[in-house]
């Protein structure tokens, strides 16, 4: 049984079809990323997967549960960090989590654990309205993982955050995955997707245009297949990535002339651009 199974999901808002038959799955304990620019349909899909929206057609199963008839029980297995999910601004960090600890019937000792885990224990008595955007993001992540969910859904978890907070959240996501949680995240940040995800799906105008491991996808689109060398005199040299170049590279190495050497496979941004003619950063 797969952790997440999505079959032929379509969705329309009025006349506009925003999802055009999405089929996707994730193994237990993996991080899967949905990568696409704004308006590609990422948030709509994550809302359908988590039962916040009913699709026009298609099926979603989480840990074998059909989300068409999702009950409260299923939601105890799921953690969600959505951009538009608010916190209680007047309540302290501790009280925000205490509320959910009571609802999930989680021991109050767990609150301290997750507050320390996201680095907010020192700020536990601070009202949420006084937290910075990054701290609020960490509080939302703490709330999402408080009940040790088996599935974690993150919608643009680091959008608009500073690099230090982003790094911290990435570490926390990796820790969750190492503890066996399946993580589904949406992002328009290719670096984030490359760093975190075992598999990614590139979403464009409601369709998945590519799927696989990030490096494998990049290799698949390595049409040039060249090596780019920067020599000690500043000269840039491009050689075919074939056995014929071996002698030339050997000579450079023997003469200690190579400063840097890279293969020329494209990054995800370039792949997306090649497939859709759009940038991932397009809004």
């Amino acid at each position: 049984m797969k952790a997440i199974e999505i079959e032929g999901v379509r969705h329309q808002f009025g006349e506009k079809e925003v999802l055009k038959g999405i089929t996707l799955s994730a193994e237990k304990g993996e991080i899967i990323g949905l990568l696409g620019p704004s308006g590609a349909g990422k948030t709509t899909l994550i809302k359908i997967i988590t039962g916040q929206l009913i699709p026009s057609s298609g099926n979603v199963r989480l840990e074998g549960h059909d989300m068409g008839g999702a009950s409260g029980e299923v939601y105890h297995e799921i953690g969600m960090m959505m951009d538009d999910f608010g916190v209680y601004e007047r309540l302290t960090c501790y009280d925000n989590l205490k509320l959910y600890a009571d609802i999930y019937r989680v021991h109050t000792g767990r609150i301290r654990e997750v507050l320390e885990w996201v680095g907010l224990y020192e700020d536990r008595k601070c009202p949420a309205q006084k937290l910075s955007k990054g701290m609020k993001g960490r509080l939302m992540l703490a709330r999402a993982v408080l009940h040790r969910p088996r599935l974690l859904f993150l919608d643009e978890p680091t959008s608009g955050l500073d690099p230090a907070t982003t790094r911290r959240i990435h570490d926390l996501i990796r820790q969750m995955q190492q503890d066996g949680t399946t993580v589904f995240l949406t992002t328009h940040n290719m670096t984030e997707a490359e760093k975190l995800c075992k598999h990614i799906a590139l979403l464009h105008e409601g369709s998945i245009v590519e799927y696989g491991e990030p490096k494998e996808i990049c290799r698949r689109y390595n049409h040039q297949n060249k090596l780019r060398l920067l020599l000690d005199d500043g000269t840039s040299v491009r050689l075919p990535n074939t056995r014929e170049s071996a002698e030339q590279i050997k000579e450079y190495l023997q003469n200690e002339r190579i400063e840097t050497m890279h293969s020329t496979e494209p990054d995800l941004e370039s792949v997306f651009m090649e497939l859709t003619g759009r940038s991932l950063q397009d809004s």
Partner: protein
Amino acid sequence: MKNATIIYRKQIKDAGKNIALLIQFVMFPLMAVIMDNAIQVADLPEHFFVGMFAVMHIGMAPLNVTAAIIAEEKEKNTLRVLLFGGVRPFEYLIGTGGYVFSSCMIGAVIFALLGGYRGREFVLFLLIMAAGILVSMFLGAVIGICSKSQIIAASVMTPVMMIFAFLPMIAMFNETIAKVADFAYSQQIQILINGLSSRTTPEPKSLIVLGLSALIAAGMFVGAYRKSALN
């Protein structure tokens, strides 16, 4: 029902830090205390201001606070998070309603003590207040459930609140308005409270209007709840 208790406790903590809401609960009881002690007019019935402000309290506080709490939770999507956490809509409404009702009833007790009601009259006064508070809470919940944001809720609840809170007072000065006001539950609450002070038997009309208002408000609430289920 454990979740309803959790929501009740959460509302005490959260709304306890919301000055705008707290003012709603204390405003009219406080005004009644001040006016009842400060203004002595010969022809004015005893504890005149208690009855007047008690009706305003009923028409304003439960309606405003219920609508504001639900609309805020919907706007900020905190309600959605609660529902995804396994809290059922009716548990949320019972917890929130319980908080509003008990807070408003504290005001009702102040009015009762200030009005000098004792024994059976004290209990009857609280029952009349409770009935009015429940009707207002149902109306407030309907507004909160049907509003997507606090601004929309405020723009709808202000005229509704003005009508029910102030109609009984205006009716004292205008017979035509008094005839219309007879169909408002707040006006009948005013009549019942006045009857309690003068120890007259309540007219069936008051009880019928109050009962019908409760039924209509509860029906609107069930309709709104079924249509949206707080979504």
